[in-house]
């Protein structure tokens, strides 16, 4: 759902006001970056796509529609840039780097001490998410992490509501299964 404070922000962006850009950048940069980082699984690619996403906003600002939902707009652009990148990049190289990225994530094994329990849980989820195919990751990131509604997520991904529902169901099953595989309590038992 669109933030009600965004109307004046969009109007100011259309006039090219730097202060409006600073507000939007401050509000969404971390979320967009985290989304791209988890989607790409590569820091260098995420950095490039992050930059291109914000440059697109800056270049497109005078032509933004007054009812633009900036958050959805930014995630749509970021996701489309990732899709284009994936189409042109060598899939074998991407696969190798992606597997290396999964290996670099913190392992869920370790002392089940209270101080680190939450961190381990998060690392376990990150690891499970990173092991999923791109199509499943993107839908889980939009709905599960970013909290987009199913209609908004369907619009961002350019698919029908029904297709989104099916993709989300499949992605949830894959995530649950990946989490089970990474469950340290099962490994101990």
């Amino acid at each position, binding site marked *: 759902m669109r933030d009600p404070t965004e109307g004046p922000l969009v109007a100011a962006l259309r006039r*090219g006001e730097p202060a409006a850009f600073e507000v939007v950048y401050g509000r969404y940069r971390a979320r967009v970056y985290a989304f791209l980082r988890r989607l790409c699984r590569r820091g260098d690619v995420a950095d490039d796509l992050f930059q291109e996403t*914000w440059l697109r906003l800056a270049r497109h*600002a005078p032509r933004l529609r007054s009812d633009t939902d900036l958050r959805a707009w930014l995630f749509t652009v970021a996701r489309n840039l990732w899709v284009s990148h994936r189409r042109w990049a060598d899939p074998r190289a991407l696969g190798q780097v992606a597997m290396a990225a999964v290996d670099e994530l913190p392992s869920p094994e370790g002392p089940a001490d209270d101080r680190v329990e939450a961190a381990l849980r998060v690392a376990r989820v990150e690891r499970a998410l990173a092991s999923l195919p791109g199509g499943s990751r993107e839908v889980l990131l939009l709905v599960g992490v970013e909290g987009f509604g199913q209609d908004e997520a369907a619009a961002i991904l350019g698919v029908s509501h029904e297709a989104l529902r099916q993709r989300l169901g499949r992605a949830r099953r894959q995530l*649950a299964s990946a989490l089970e595989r990474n469950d340290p309590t099962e490994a101990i038992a």
Partner: protein
Amino acid sequence: MNGSEPPPPELAALRELQVEEPPALVRERVRRRALAALASSSSRGPGQRLLARFAMPSALAATVVVYLAWAFTAAGALYRR
């Protein structure tokens, strides 16, 4: 899944993931470049935007059409000789 139901456990687990700020260097570089792009895009008046969006592509298309018409005419004239 609706608003009143708690999210399934695997989706609830995703909500715990941290938001990650870009590295400071990237953050500042992107900010600077985007502000420059914003200044440049908003300094173009509506006339310039119309020119870039419609007039230039139309001129290019017209040039291609004129060239193709000339090429076909010339080829036809050579063939008839």
